[in-house]
């Protein structure tokens, strides 16, 4: 499935799923069914869908945690090798930040926690120490770097779990509902990190239920339902398809709803590119 504009089609594909199916229990419905997806380098992709639609399973397949029952996953055009070496290579380049930081953070303190991934890549201790220091500074973790992980707040845990992945210098960063259970302040911090990653040219995939955020941030939105990709396209294309949105338990952004009502009342004229965010609507008004 590839619905990008011509310019974007020239961007190389970094991760590709071809007819990927995966099932946790052979007697039950598969968690993923014949998923075809191309992720292009440097793009910002938002995955949306109801709980249980297969977003997290898809992410785990992309990182090589789950091996598809059918189909193939290609990284830089080469099929993923499910050997120790192949998986280590994939996992060093495709990092996942899990939804619940408590499932990810296992070490007793922040420095130990962040060092785990990079040391697994076989990096020397001195170099790993330097990399950990850099990522701690970059993500503003310094004030709580000496604290035990269990004494951190939810937002701080999320910051550390992002640092866990960034220290490995991945090419693709997957964030599974990064703003879940965060207060507005920490949501903003996490969103700023995500923007930074994208600006640095890292391919970012996010699972989110926040349509406003997805529309404002993403280059592409993928709608998932029952383990399949229901719809994929630019935020404008997705928002225009209200049926697909409703089928995935989503609603169009508030700004777009208000814009349509204002158009219906003749207050605003129909635009070629309808506003998807409050800021865009404000500009129109």
């Amino acid at each position: 499935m590839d619905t990008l504009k011509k310019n974007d089609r020239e961007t190389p594909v970094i991760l590709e799923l071809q007819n990927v199916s995966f099932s946790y229990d052979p007697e039950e419905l598969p968690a993923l069914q014949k998923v075809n997806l191309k992720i292009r380098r440097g793009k910002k992709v938002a995955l949306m869908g109801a709980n249980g639609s297969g977003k997290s399973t898809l992410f785990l397949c992309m990182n090589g945690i789950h091996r598809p029952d059918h189909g193939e996953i290609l990284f830089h055009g080469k099929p993923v090798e499910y050997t120790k070496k192949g998986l280590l290579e994939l996992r060093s380049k495709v990092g996942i930040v899990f939804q619940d930081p408590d499932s990810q953070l296992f070490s007793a303190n922040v420095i130990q926690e962040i060092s785990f991934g990079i040391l697994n890549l076989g990096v020397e201790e001195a170099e790993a120490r330097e990399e950990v220091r850099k990522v701690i500074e970059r993500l503003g973790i310094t004030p709580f770097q000496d604290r035990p992980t269990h004494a951190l707040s939810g937002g701080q845990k999320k910051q550390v779990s992002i640092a866990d992945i960034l220290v490995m210098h991945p090419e693709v960063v997957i964030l599974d509902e990064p703003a879940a259970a965060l207060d507005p302040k920490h949501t903003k911090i996490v969103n700023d990190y995500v923007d930074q990653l994208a600006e640095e040219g890292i391919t970012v995939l996010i699972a989110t239920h926040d349509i406003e955020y997805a529309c404002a941030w993403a280059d592409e939105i993928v709608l998932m339902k029952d383990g399949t990709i229901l719809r994929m396209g630019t935020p404008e294309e997705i928002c225009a398809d209200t049926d697909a949105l409703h089928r995935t338990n989503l609603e169009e952004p508030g700004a777009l709803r208000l814009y349509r009502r204002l158009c219906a009342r003749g207050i605003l004229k129909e635009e070629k590119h309808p506003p998807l965010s409050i800021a865009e609507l404000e500009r129109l008004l």
Partner: protein
Amino acid sequence: MHTIDHYCYHSGLRGVNAGLKFAYAAATMLICLISRSLAAAALVLLANGILTVKKGRIPFPFYRKLMLVPLAFLILGTAAMILNLSKTPLDSYAVSIGSWYLTGSRNGIRQAVRLIGSSLASVSCLYVLSLNTPMPEILLVLEKLHCPELLTELMLLIYRYIFILADTASAIRTSQNCRLGYQDYRTSLRSFGELCAVLFVRALKRSNDLYTAMEARGYDGKIRILHEKRPVKRKELAAVIVFELILTGVALWIR
């Protein structure tokens, strides 16, 4: 558990090399246990009290409470050495109860007091270590002492997840309490059983999630992490050596 952990991370002795603290605690404990000297025990109790409360900045009421726990066990445990029920009175004291005596010997009392003193001093050594050294640093010392990796890694994971399980248990208990889950003995038993069952299932799920997250970062069966470096300072090393020498002298000459 939370409190002890909090004090460890804020202790004034946190900067001291964990290996040195470990060596101090082990050597001091050994001298106390082998010598059974009351004078040595008193010196150790005093030194450890100063180290923990003054240097380590652990609040005295908390330290006193911690020390009272083993003291209660020791008093109960040594009661048999102090109190005897006999038909003939012993040399220290005797209270007649009919044709019997509640009595004790001087030797028995001396032994009990020595046992209490040296045991309490030994426990205080463990407190110096555990109240002033964060768990990861203790684990590092164990690793350097060639303690099996499997054991230290398990300890690390248990240490990390014990807090999560404690928080989960507390949340479940609150939720049960809100719905009158502990209103009488019968419901309390039932609720507690359910809490244990849910906790077990959640612990299993957590362990699965954790394994997945670790695998995603290249885990291959060995936990590789960075450890903080705190070199041994000459002054501190000298202080420990001098103290152990004095303690050995006291233990040998003042029994």
